[in-house]
C-alpha cells in the first residue's frame, strides 16, 4: 500500500470522528505548547538581555551588597543595601584598572508632571553623566552634575499628553510632598535598559543628577562626616582584557578597606559581577525553568501518547469489520499496520502543529505581558512536529499490530 493512499484513508477516519480526534490530541497539544511557550520566552529573554547588555558592557561591573546565601541568584541588585559612601566611590576610582565609578540610586517620588499633565511615578534614577557614556540620544544629552536637569527615555518623554522635549520643564513631586522643577536635558534614543539594574523592557524612566537630587546620607565611618550613600554601583574597567583582575581588586578594596564593609549587615557579602556573569546566572535560572517545564511537557506527552494508544485501540476494535473487509480484498498485514500507524502519526502531527501554534501565541502573550521583544526559536518548530510524529507512531504501534493480526473471517463476522 502506498503511503499517499494510507494518508488519504487515515485522514478520512480522523475526519469521521472530529471531536474525538481533537480531544485525543490534547495531551500532545498541551505538552508541545508548554515547551514552545517557554522556549520562546527563554529565547526572547536572552535576546532582550543580550540586546540590553551591549558589547561595551562586558567591562562593566555591577556592584552591590546582597544577602550571603543567594550567591547572586536573586538577580542584579537583589537585596542591595545603601552602604557605598562618596568616600568609597572616590577610592574605587583610584583602584588600578578602573575607568569610572557610577552610582545608581533611587529617589522616591509620587508623581511627575509636564505641561499640566501629571503621571504617578514611584521613583526616578539618580546617577552621574558617565552613566550615559555608551548611550545614544535622540535629542540633547546628559544632564550636568549639580543642576536641576533630567534625562528621559522615550517611554517617559511620551507618557505625557504633550511629549516632553529638550528644554521643556518637568515637575517632580518628591515623596515628602515638595515639588522640584527640572529642565529636560536629553531624551534617549531607545527605552531599553541602560544597565542590568534597570531590568528589561521599555517602561518610562527618568534620570536625574545625584547632586542635588539624591539625599540618602550616612556618616562615613572613615571620614567621620555625613556623605551620600548608595546601594548600587557600576564600575567600568578601562581595559576589557583585564576585567577579571580589576574585579578582584575592586572586591579586595570593598572587603578590606571600605566604609561599605563597616556599614553592611553581618551576613551580607559584596557582589561584583560583570553583565556577562549576570547573564550567565540568568541563563542558569532559565535553564532550570526550561528543564522543569520540559519535565511537565514530557509528562503531558506521555499522557497524550496513552490517549492516542487508547483511542487507536478503540478505533481498531470499532473497525474490526472494516479490517476484515480490507483483508478480504487483499490487504496484507503490513497494509493494515501502515494504515493505523499513519492514522496515529497524523493525530500526532495535528497535535504538534496545534501545540506549536498555541505555543507561539503563548510566547507572544507572555513576552508582550512582560514587555520585551519577541524572538522565536524557529529551530524548535520542526522538532515539535517530529516529536508529534514519534509520539503518534509509538502509541500507535500496539493498536496497529493488534489490528494487523486480526483474523479476516472473525472480523467479517464481527457486529
Amino acid at each position, binding site marked *: *500500500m*502506498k503511503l*499517499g*493512499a494510507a494518508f488519504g*484513508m487515515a485522514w*478520512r*477516519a480522523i475526519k*469521521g470522528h472530529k471531536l474525538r480526534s481533537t480531544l485525543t490530541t490534547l495531551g500532545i497539544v498541551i505538552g508541545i505548547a508548554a515547551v514552545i511557550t517557554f522556549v520562546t520566552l527563554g529565547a526572547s529573554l536572552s535576546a532582550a538581555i543580550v540586546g540590553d547588555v551591549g558589547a561595551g558592557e562586558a567591562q562593566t561591573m555591577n556592584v552591590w551588597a546582597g544577602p550571603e546565601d543567594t550567591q547572586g541568584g536573586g538577580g542584579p541588585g537583589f537585596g542591595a543595601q545603601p552602604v557605598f559612601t562618596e568616600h568609597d566611590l572616590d577610592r574605587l576610582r583610584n583602584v588600578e584598572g578602573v575607568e569610572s565609578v557610577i552610582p545608581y540610586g533611587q529617589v522616591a517620588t509620587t508623581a511627575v508632571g509636564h505641561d499640566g499633565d501629571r503621571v504617578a511615578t514611584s521613583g526616578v534614577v539618580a546617577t552621574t553623566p558617565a552613566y550615559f557614556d555608551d548611550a545614544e540620544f535622540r535629542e540633547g544629552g546628559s544632564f550636568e552634575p549639580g543642576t536641576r536637569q533630567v534625562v528621559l527615555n522615550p517611554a517617559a518623554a511620551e507618557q505625557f499628553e504633550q511629549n516632553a522635549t529638550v528644554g521643556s520643564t518637568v515637575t517632580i513631586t518628591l515623596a515628602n510632598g515638595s515639588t522640584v522643577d527640572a529642565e529636560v536635558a536629553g531624551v534617549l534614543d531607545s527605552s531599553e535598559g541602560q544597565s542590568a539594574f534597570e531590568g528589561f523592557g521599555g517602561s518610562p524612566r527618568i534620570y536625574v543628577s545625584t547632586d542635588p537630587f539624591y539625599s540618602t546620607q550616612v556618616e562615613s565611618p572613615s571620614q567621620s562626616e555625613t556623605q551620600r550613600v548608595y546601594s548600587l554601583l557600576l564600575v567600568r574597567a578601562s581595559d576589557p582584557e583585564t576585567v577579571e583582575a580589576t574585579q578582584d581588586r575592586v572586591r579586595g578594596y570593598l572587603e578590606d578597606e571600605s566604609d561599605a564593609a563597616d556599614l553592611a549587615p553581618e551576613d551580607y557579602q559584596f557582589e561584583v559581577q560583570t553583565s556577562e556573569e549576570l547573564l550567565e546566572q540568568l541563563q542558569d535560572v532559565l535553564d532550570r525553568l526550561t528543564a522543569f517545564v520540559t519535565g511537565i511537557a514530557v509528562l503531558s506527552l506521555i499522557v497524550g501518547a496513552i490517549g492516542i494508544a487508547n483511542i487507536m485501540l478503540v478505533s481498531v476494535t470499532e473497525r474490526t*469489520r*472494516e479490517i*476484515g*473487509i*480490507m*483483508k*478480504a*480484498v*487483499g*490487504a*496484507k*498485514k*503490513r*497494509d493494515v499496520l501502515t494504515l493505523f500507524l499513519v492514522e496515529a502519526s497524523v493525530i500526532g502531527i495535528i497535535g504538534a502543529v496545534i501545540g506549536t501554534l498555541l505555543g507561539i501565541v503563548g510566547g507572544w502573550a507572555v513576552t508582550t505581558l512582560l514587555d520585551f521583544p519577541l524572538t522565536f526559536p524557529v529551530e524548535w518548530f520542526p522538532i515539535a512536529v517530529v516529536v508529534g510524529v514519534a509520539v503518534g507512531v509509538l502509541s500507535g504501534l500496539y493498536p496497529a499490530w493488534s489490528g494487523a493480526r486480526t483474523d*479476516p*473471517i472473525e472480523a*467479517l463476522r464481527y457486529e
Partner: protein
Amino acid sequence: MQDSDVAVSLTDVRKTYQLGEPVHALDGVSLEIPRGSYTAVMGPSGSGKSTLLNLVGCLDTPTEGTVTVDGRETSDLRETELARIRGEEVGFVFQTFNLMPRLTARENVALPLVFQDVSKDERHERAEAMLERVGLGDRVDHRPNELSGGQRQRVAVARALIADPAILLADEPTGNLDTDTGAKIMALFEELYDEGNTILMVTHERHVAEHAERIVHLLDGEVEAVEELSGAGRPTGAEVGDGSGAGGPGDDGRGDAEEGGERA
C-alpha cells in the same frame, strides 16, 4: 479436463474446529470448478457452505486436503501470498455487502487496487468503468448509506470484479435483498457468466440456485450430490445482452430508490 481449464479445485478437503469435541465443518470435500462455469452451492444451515467458500477465497486454510486456486495450492502459502490471491485471483461478494462505510462507491470498488499499489488515477478510472458496467455509472460519489440495498450489492460485485479475478465468490448475495432486487442481481450474475466469468455462489434458495449450470448439494460437511442443470431455467445469453443496455442504470436507479425506502 486440463489443469488450465480449472479455476479452482478442492481435493479431500477437511476443516475441523476444535470446540471441546471436534466439529467437522467440511469433511472430505473434492470439487473442481471449471473456468467459465457457474456453480451454486446449496445445503441446510450449518452444512459448511460458507466454510467452503472461505477456503476457496483464501480467507481460511483447510485442516487437511488441498485447495488450488488458479493453479496454486494455498495450504503452504505465506500470509502475504494469501493476501495477494485474495486481492487478485478471487472476488468476494457477501450477503451483508461489506462495503467500507466512509468510502464512496468509486473508492469502495477501487479498494482492492489500493493494496496492489495501482495509482489513484488508474484506480478511479477502472472503478468508474466497472461501476458503469454494473449499472451504477451515476452513483460513483455516493457512500453506502446513500445507496439502496440492491445498489450496494452492485457496488460489492463491481469491487469483486475490479482486479479481474479467476473466480467470483458469492455467499448468499441475494440473502439480504427483496425478491425483485435479488432477481436483478441474479440477472447481473447471468451477464457476468455470459461474459466468461467463473462464478461460485452459495444460496439457500432453489430458484436462485437454478440460475447456475450445476448445483453442489452439501450436507454435514460432505458433498451429497452434484446436480447438472440443463440451462432450461436460464435465459439465453442474447436476451441478457440486450437487457443490460436498455434496462441498466436508469431502470435500476428508479426501482432501487423505492426499495431503499422500504428497507430503511
